[in-house]
């Protein structure tokens, strides 16, 4: 891919930027004065205070579990297939017959299930595709990690307890 150069015609006001700076400063001072004299806060004291996001907010993934703490995922690969960012990596396996109270319903299991959150675009397609309502996006938006490895969610992490949608 080459570089595309685009030239635009700018008006005199646009060239000096002064008018734009003035508009910006106007908002800044308005908020400053509001804060000082009217005690009107425009920010919150995060992390002590938190915003309540919409129920439909799409944050950190989790995989729902049943009453035996077995994941609901059956490694059907539909999420991996649909994922536009190609960040889901599943390896399927047969579940141990003797430890499988659900029989044929859960005979297939994910041996490993990794989501690379660094690549994920939180589109929610995986949740939409899942026939077992296994993979879900919680409302947890605190995704910061200290190493890149921590941003790869493995099965044990995904199976963590999430109430409702978190």
């Amino acid at each position, binding site marked *: 891919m080459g570089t595309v150069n685009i030239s635009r015609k700018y008006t005199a006001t646009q060239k000096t930027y002064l008018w734009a700076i003035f508009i910006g400063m106007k908002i800044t001072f308005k908020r400053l004065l509001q804060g000082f004299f009217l005690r009107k806060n425009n920010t919150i004291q995060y992390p002590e205070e938190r915003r309540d996001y919409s129920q439909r907010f799409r944050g950190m993934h989790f995989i729902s579990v049943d009453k035996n703490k077995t994941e609901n995922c*059956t*490694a*059907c*690969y*539909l999420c991996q*297939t649909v994922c536009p960012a190609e960040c889901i990596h599943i390896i*399927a*396996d*047969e579940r141990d*017959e003797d430890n499988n109270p659900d*029989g*044929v*319903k859960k*005979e*297939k299991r994910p041996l490993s299930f990794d989501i690379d959150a660094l690549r994920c675009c939180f589109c929610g397609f995986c949740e939409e595709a899942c*026939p*077992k309502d296994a993979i879900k996006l919680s409302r947890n938006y605190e995704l910061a990690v200290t190493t890149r490895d921590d941003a790869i969610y493995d099965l044990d992490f995904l199976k963590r307890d999430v109430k409702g949608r978190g």
Partner: protein
Amino acid sequence: MSNTTEIEIKMPKVDLNYSSFKKPVQVSADPAAKPNPKVTIDGKVYDFAPGDTIMQVAERYKIHEEIPRYCYHPGMPIAGSCRMCTVEVEKAPKLMTSCSTPAADGMVVHTRSEKVVKSRTGVMEFLLTNHPLDCPVCDKAGECELQDYNFEYGPMTSNFKEEKRVYEDSTTKKLSDKVTLNMNRCVHCERCVRFTDDVTKTSDLVMLNRGYKKELAAADEERGLFNDYQGCLTDFCPVGALTYNDFRFEKRVWFLEKKASICDRCSKGCNIEVHSEKDVVYRYMPIFNEQVNQHWMCDEGRSSYQSLSNPLRIISPLMKYQDALHSTSIETLLGSISKELQSASSVELVVGTDATCEEAAYLKEKMPEVIKNIRLSYYNGTNNVTTSKDDQKLDNLLRMKDKTANTKGVEETGLTALKNGEVSSEIAILFRSGRAGIPKMKADQKLILWGVWTQEEIKALPSKNILGVIAGLSTIEKIGSFKNTDGILQKFAPAIVHRGNGLSVKSVVSAWKSLK
């Protein structure tokens, strides 16, 4: 041989369950000849041969994909039990099953009329009443005829409110160590039963009970399935009732890339489809070829993909250094063995009969230029086969006694069989592609191994005096041709890219030449 047929192995346009050997009927040029009977299908007139059923006429003109089917399979006798293939025949009081209704002169057939589509929807609804629809766990999903036809004809809703039928004992039942049955998914087409009755003639599958309780079982529960073509059951089972254990849960079929190649496990040379993702092979499936393997392939061949990704396979040149083999570059290896070869009193090259025709001819032509006074011969060594004359059928279908793919082809290059099956020169170079036997030898025979070898095979060699191993390509990684037991020359192209440091014969020989 003058009557050689040459075939280039290509990916077929239609899938296995639709491939048929029926060809359009020849129209005689002689106006006085009796005209062929004709049938009209969807407004077009087709000539047919007397005895054809409507489905077979459609097959002749490659319009048979218009007609959905479960029980009909071009390689098996007709059953007419699923009612999916119904078509409307003008003047007939009711719909006819196209697979079993003989075509008649002047018949007018509609394959897509409103009545037909309604009937197919009805059949689909009935099939789905008891079907578990567990596509997420089902390995057939993606290549399932029930899915495909339901998408095309099926009702979007079901009127069935009752509990679905569950076969408690045969939900996940191993019919043998190769095939698993999930009876809940079965649509009772009985292709599998007819296959064991009429194709393998082993009759090791039966349908027990009737109606609602109709259940598939191995004829001898203790012995399970015992035919040598069990993988085929899983190819043509239209649903995920029969699944192949080696492939079970390994991969979703829609990720697989499909390339044509040839099976190198016996002298039949069955045409195969190599299913791989990122150059890792997940399974082989047969390709329909009327002259060679029809619709089938044996389980030994089907499982042979495992040898490709065998972790013990040698995929890098190895050189002897201080009594052990070490991985090295091809130039270093050839340099070191050339020295040994020059000082040796006699050298021989034994070409395994699993080499391609091109490889054998190339070695015969070029090796004398690289090593002076080299003796060349070929060796088969599987099942006591020495030459292609010893080859015979092992059963009524495909399997052959000669377990290498190209005995005929190697013989035709003019090489002679290894005397007494024993190497006698000071240094013997053994060239094989993982299939030919290993000749007899003295306990201190100096050896150079070439081609596809595994560490187990090297450990089992009678002699431990190995100067080096030149890693080569296996059949599906290379281009070439095999001449099968019936004298059919089949060409194939690489199906996957070799992911090691193995080299083709040509590049090894040219590296060898450029040393001097």
